[in-house]
């Protein structure tokens, strides 16, 4: 078990080093997120819908799509020189490969969130003062859910003829039970309600995380030929 996690961390560090060197996916995800915030603003009738009602939806739409950019990169960096064959021919457990990839993706999504959430607060004039900590908690819970499913589907999508086109189609239905609770819980917090009011949503997020982290980790080796 310790070995599985140690190897996962090794692979995650490798992926993050590559991302840090090239920064390609992170910057496009970030620019995408900021553009999304701006475009939503202009598509929005501020006299009809208050910023507090709009912001949670904007945030979670942005996270799903920018997260997908990162997750697609996750297995596509393995493709050009078949780095994935090197990983598969090595003695590391297949679960480590999946967990390492998922961990790097989690860092990616959380980093996008860390920029996008304050940006929404700034652009839409929302005070985050005392809710930022529970909000960060929700963001992390939701990110774990998005990343577990997204990483697995990214591993599958790169090997298909449609490649990156297939990823949104496969993952978006699975993102529904993450985005609904996350957006609803965010809305509760932003409108000044106590965290307890979002309890049911948080439980749902947590349950999703547990079920799908386990299911996807176990499922990944089955996608491989062995």
């Amino acid at each position: 078990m310790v070995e599985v996690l140690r190897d996962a961390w090794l692979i995650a560090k490798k992926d993050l080093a590559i991302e840090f060197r090239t920064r390609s996916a992170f910057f496009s995800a970030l620019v995408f997120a900021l553009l999304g915030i701006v475009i939503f603003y202009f598509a929005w009738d501020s006299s009809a819908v208050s910023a507090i009602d709009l912001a949670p939806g904007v945030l979670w739409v942005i996270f799903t799509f920018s997260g997908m950019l990162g997750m697609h990169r996750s297995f596509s960096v393995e493709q050009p020189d078949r780095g994935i064959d090197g990983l598969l021919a090595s003695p590391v457990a297949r679960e480590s490969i999946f967990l390492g990839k998922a961990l790097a993706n989690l860092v990616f999504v959380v980093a996008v969130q860390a920029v996008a959430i304050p940006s929404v607060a700034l652009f839409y004039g929302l005070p985050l003062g005392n809710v930022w900590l529970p909000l960060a908690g929700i963001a992390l819970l939701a990110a774990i859910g998005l990343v577990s499913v997204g990483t697995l589907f990214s591993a599958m999508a790169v090997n298909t003829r449609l490649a990156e086109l297939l990823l949104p189609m496969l993952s978006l239905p699975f993102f529904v039970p993450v985005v609904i609770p996350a957006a609803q819980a965010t809305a509760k917090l932003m409108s000044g309600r106590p965290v307890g009011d979002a309890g049911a949503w948080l439980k749902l997020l947590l349950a999703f995380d547990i079920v799908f982290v386990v299911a996807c980790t176990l499922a990944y080796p089955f996608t491989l030929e062995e």
Partner: protein
Amino acid sequence: MTNESGAVVVTANLSRTFGRRKAVDGVTLAVDAGNTLALFGPNGAGKTTLLRVLSGLLKPTSGFARIGDTKLPGGPEIRRRVGVISHHTLLYEALTARENVEFTARLYGVRDFREATERALGRMRILDRAETPVRALSRGLRQRVSIARATVHEPQVILADEPFTGLDILGAAALSDLLNDLRHHGAAVILVTHNVDEGLALATHAAIMDRGRIVVTDETVGLDKQTFADRYRQLVAQDG
């Protein structure tokens, strides 16, 4: 090819099909520790598929294969003992040569991974470019890094698929030295190539594969290389 006892790589009637096409069709071979089998064959003969089965990346459809005492497809213990030189480099372009090799050493659980990386890069005479990102290296230098990567954990079995591709004279000499050196230290090498001279120079045994089958096997010891090369060219010509 006759002495099967103590052989490190053994296959018996090994087959791998894709749909109805038999890429590998009933291959039986044995390579002892300290021997190099040069495997020749025209394009599409099934050499790469055979290596991919032996390296655990593909499952055999039928037949038997073992490395050491472990039957394929085996687990981590068996993969730890094998080194794979693929016709892809298996490298990450954004990382430096050293980072790539060191990452591999750690994947294989090499305890003194820094020293091992240094040694592997040195053997392929690429230490002076160790801090260069792979993206900035030429095809031949990438191949040297790829070979360093494949041998950093001192494998007991080396599966090399066209390892000379892109190498210059210096690189080819380094690879020949390395393969001979590993062999003398008890490794079993399977060397897949089109180039008869290159292959026979390193081989203790030779075989020709065609349409998934081993059609010619011979010990190079006492074998007239010219005859072998002629037979091979004849075969390829028939195919074309």
